């Protein structure tokens, strides 16, 4: 099973991963073999089976609406690629 080139390009865009022209057929083939594996699921009868998202059926805890995070802007920005005046710098978005 292999995936269409256009599909790979779409996935690459959705994933924000640049893919080389030369590697597309290889990527397609390897993704195809994984999808072939997971397609075994389609044969299973799961009528009426509830989807499981947490092993102990735990639900999200709620907490009081209080500020618990400390302001650590300097420490957090010290490891950023580029910052200015407390802001993260990225390439220009709007011309």
């Amino acid at each position, binding site marked *: 099973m292999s995936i269409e080139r256009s599909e790979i390009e779409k996935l690459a865009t959705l*994933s924000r991963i*640049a893919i080389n022209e030369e590697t597309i057929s290889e*990527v397609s083939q390897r993704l195809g073999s994984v999808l072939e594996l997971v397609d075994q699921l389609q044969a299973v009868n799961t009528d009426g089976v*509830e989807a499981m998202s*947490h092993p*102990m059926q*735990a639900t999200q805890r709620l907490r009081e609406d209080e500020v618990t995070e400390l302001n650590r802007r300097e420490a957090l920005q010290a490891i950023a690629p580029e910052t200015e005046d407390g802001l993260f710098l990225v390439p220009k978005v709007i011309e």
Partner: protein
Amino acid sequence: MHNLTIAELVRGLQSKEFTSVELTQHFLDRIASLDPAYNAVITVTAEQALQAAAAADQRLAAGNAPDLCGVPILHKDIFCTEGVRTSCGSKMLDNFVPPYNATVVENFEQAGAVVLGKTNMDEFAMGSSNETSFYGPVKNPWATDSVPGGSSGGSAAAIAARLAPGATATDTGGSIRQPAALCGVSGIKPTYGRVSRWGMIAFASSLDQGGPMARTAEDCALLLNCMASYDDRDSTCIDREVPDYTANLNYSVKGLRIGVPKEYFSEGLHPGTEKAVRAALATLQEQGAELVEISLPNSALSVPAYYVIAPAEASANLSRFDGARYGYRCEDPKDLQDMYCRSRAEGFGEEVQRRILIGTYCLSAGYYDAYYGKAQQVRQLIQQDFVSAFENVDLIMGPTCPSPAFKFGAKGDDPVAMYLEDIYTIATNLAGLPGMSIPCGMVEDKPVGLQIIGNYFDEARILNAAHQFQQLSDWHTRAPEGIA
């Protein structure tokens, strides 16, 4: 000193037979001289370790120090360590120095344990051979042409080579148990929610769980006592008292009902591995345990279900690596899209990219129900198999993996061949159950692991059975050639 267990080291430190500084220096020297052959440690924190050891010696001198005070350990490089690079085995985080500690790291720090450094791993914990690490593969100390398993291969190899008496690790589909098996050490993946995931870099959040590795079950119990805690910063952590995992170690296995799943002894299992596992089961039977054949009929579906759920969750978790706030950013991005796309293409390795693409596919419009929804339903079926089995048995045992350590490159270009390495371990993660691997034999001069699966929060019973087996066997005491 490197041949002593953690339990023995605790006694030696508390009775002042040796100091933590001596012990720490001894292990640092071993890492410096031996690790170039294994590549198990990415970052050595010698200076901090010696400082922590000196502080531990003061606490020990003052009396009433906790068990692990002064004991040197290694952390898998997936746990955030304040001020110490935490790479997760990836170029993406090669320059990442976290401004905070993971809860697990804090727990060990409070107990006075000494951190020698950070261990190598498959990139973002995605792999079963350590071949996906940006820092190069770890070599198995039992056969350096073979893999140590993964993703916690660095932790397992370091313990096998006596570079540390214990280490932290994580397990999403077998990443504690499989490398423990392949390197001949003991390791336990606790119940999902037992150990805090805060500060543990996320791969697949509904499956990831931290746990300890060491040479013996008793040492794993000592480490788990410290590692397990309730943490309200991890919203899936379960608020439940942490028992003393060493308390039941000496219980007899007489009357213990051990389920032996027939699906774990089917086609694909190496005959030598089967023989070793069966012999281990017979040893427990001789002590009065009862073997019960059971069936986990949906076992074969665990690998396909996992390879939908884990990549889907990974694709969401790894979207945070965008080159904007921390981690790798490509050179001269021409615009924002280019920065995202090239930073991620250059920063992530091949297997990580593959899983992000698969996960994105499974979650994309029109496919969600057919893949992710379906896999979550199948997950429920897999859990039901275990729930039914545990109505009749106390523990489930079988092989940890199908065969002993394979050679580098042996699983080559086919990702699916590598995925099948975790065929016996993945179901436990999908169900959220605790599981352990302990050494139970040798095949082709390489270690074999016995897997012990327990019911929810039954870690103490797993550790008890493992400890009892280790009282009757010496596989866990063996060292690779040139190590002892």
